């Protein structure tokens, strides 16, 4: 999809390879803006962006709010803990109430898959998916692709990315697979079968149950967060066993090719999916992912709401 047709960003599938590349190029402009002494442009002045977070989040929410502010949008913030949701208000009533205040975009995070689709049926504002259940987290995938592109500087067609861990319950994995495959990268999912989706029909990925088989061949080892409650659901016998079999240990990290990156969407469980010293290696670009997240989200908001081809190069007032 091209920018002209873009109404929402609910799924990576709405973008296609062309849309992803367009957004990565727009992100380059935003990185440039962020390097300025005053990292702020008037591109979205007068626009209002609401963040509607039904689930706890630190980095995604702050990242979106920072992105909106750097584009001079007005921001409103909604969190379940202090809202009328606590009084039993329905999702639809809540979003229609917020829309009545006059808004241009809703950035939504919800524990249930599909909520961004429901919202887009009810309101006219642009809907940006900031994570829906196990389903998708498209801006995370975009910032991951941007990070891979800038750190490795090679065509995606030449890259092999291993996504390691709890793919089944991971919205990050679903969006990353869609984005990386759209860009032509080879993707291998590495997990015990209990942590893979029941069906991978149509995913067009490789699968391995043995991380040691894979580490020496990858350009990116993308490690997913292991949720602590998975042990209780009998998906893995113990977290210790998981760390032994699927954790990115120093020994495994040492077998990665010299140029290979280690990535993680955060927050990390050090000592479970990633060893503490591995997380601090120079090749672990986890904080770069976070930094790129702001620029990517600026690009997404500008792509959906902006009226110019690229943000104005003049800082301050127009």
């Amino acid at each position: 999809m091209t920018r002209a047709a873009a109404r929402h960003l609910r799924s990576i599938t709405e973008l296609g390879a062309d849309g992803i590349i367009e957004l990565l190029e727009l992100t380059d402009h935003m990185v440039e803006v962020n390097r300025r002494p005053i990292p702020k442009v008037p591109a979205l002045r007068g626009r209002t962006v609401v963040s509607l977070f039904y689930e706890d989040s630190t980095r995604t929410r702050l990242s979106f709010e920072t992105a909106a502010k750097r584009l001079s949008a007005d921001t409103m913030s909604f969190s379940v803990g202090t809202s009328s949701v606590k009084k039993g208000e329905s999702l639809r009533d809540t979003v229609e109430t917020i829309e009545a205040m006059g808004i241009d975009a809703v950035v939504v995070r919800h524990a249930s898959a599909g909520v961004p689709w429901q919202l887009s049926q009810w309101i006219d504002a642009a809907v940006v998916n900031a994570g829906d259940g196990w389903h998708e987290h498209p801006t995370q995938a975009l910032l991951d692709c941007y990070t891979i592109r800038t750190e490795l500087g090679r065509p995606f067609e030449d890259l092999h990315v291993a996504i390691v861990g709890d793919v089944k319950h991971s919205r990050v994995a679903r969006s990353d697979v869609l984005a990386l495959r759209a860009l032509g990268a080879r993707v291998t999912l590495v997990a015990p079968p209990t942590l893979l989706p029941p069906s991978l029909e149509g995913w067009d990925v490789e699968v391995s149950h043995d991380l040691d088989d894979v580490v020496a061949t990858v350009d990116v080892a993308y490690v997913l967060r292991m949720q602590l409650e998975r042990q209780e659901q009998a998906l893995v016998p113990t977290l210790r066993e998981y760390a032994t079999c699927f954790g990115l240990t120093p020994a495994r990290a040492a077998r990665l090719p010299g140029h290979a990156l280690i990535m993680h969407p955060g927050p990390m469980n050090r000592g479970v999916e990633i060893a503490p010293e591995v997380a601090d290696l120079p090749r672990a670009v986890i904080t770069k992912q976070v930094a790129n997240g702001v620029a990517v989200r600026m690009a997404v908001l500008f792509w959906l709401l902006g009226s110019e081809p690229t943000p104005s190069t003049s800082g301050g007032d127009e």
Partner: protein
Amino acid sequence: MSDETLLRGGTVVDATGTRRADVLVAGGVVQAVGEGLDAPAGVRVLDAGGCVVAPGLVDLHVHLRQPGREEAETVETGSRAAALGGFTCVVAMPNTEPAIDSAAMVREVQALAATALCDVAVSGAITVGRAGERLAPMAEMAALGVRLFTDDGTGVQDARLMRRALEYARGLGVVLAQHCEDAALAGGGSMHEGAWSSRLGLPGQPAEAEEVMVLRDIALARLTGARVHFQHLSTARSVGFVAQAKAEGLPVTAEATPHHFTLTDACCAGYDPVFKVHPPLRTGTDVAAVRQGLASGALDAIATDHAPHAPHLKEQPFDQAPPGMLGLETALALALTELDLPIEHVLALLSWQPAAVLGLADHGGPVAAGRPAHLCVIDADAEWVVDPARLASRARNTPYVGRAMRGRVRHTLLRGEPVVVDGEATR
């Protein structure tokens, strides 16, 4: 006004065959069936020209929601929807709030049904509160006319308890009906587990969650000799297992819903909870097998599993919304439109075969003098489009919005009373 009605110009279709005939009804009973009947003075003549006149339809599986969920449906609104769909008898599921698990609750719903636009056969829960722990007083409920017991909404998980229930039911001559879903294996999944659930990031329930309980209950039917009726079968293998059990001579019957022969799990792709239902919409292979099972006789009946829900509940996120969809006003048309079966076969699945599952004497029988006048008149060629605003049901959760259908009920007679005339309810 006279209570005499003449259905003129139709083709009578029942279990005995098909013939051109007028039908004269008086005193709640069919008086005469034959070509060119004279209209006595004062008789109400209803045009059945070009239509099929059939025994009223029988739905083994309806949620009328009363008591407890009157914002979704009442016995009155649900029975009006039933009459408009051609049904003259529906089996009301016991998962009301509170559940129909006692003689007192049976009496309450029977009292509500006294003025309904169709007969309501109240079913009872197998276990107290549908909790799956202790048997409900089935004999007391059977004494009030309850013919079918089920914990519908959930299956009886405990095999030993189900065995006892079957043995006890055999002594009463009643039917136990099972919603086959192994709760642990289903794991709270909100759609069919497969390619679509994996892609959509929704928790799924595998086909096997249904199939293991179908197999278990076939084994229990063999063990106890008791009748088992399988509700809303949705998977290809479930249909196959029941066909095998029948070939073995076991006393099993089964139903399937219109949505399981028309819709697949791909419908969930837009996350609209109107497509959330238990058992879930399955794959195209399963849909084809359900159709085949209806054609071959492996499945005895089409039952709607009409499950109204208030709009605000169906506007929750997909995984939180309650399962279920409307069915009464679209079932006949879907069967006529989508199943490649002659109308005689469709009516068998919707009328006399479900009546036989329940052992109903008054419904589904031949259209003949002396029989109770529960009749429906069907314009099998009428084309229409589903408009949720025009449904009689109190709820609006039909998955068929805007769908073009063929076949519509013109008139419905309950005990001779025209409760639907020219496609409109008379009260």
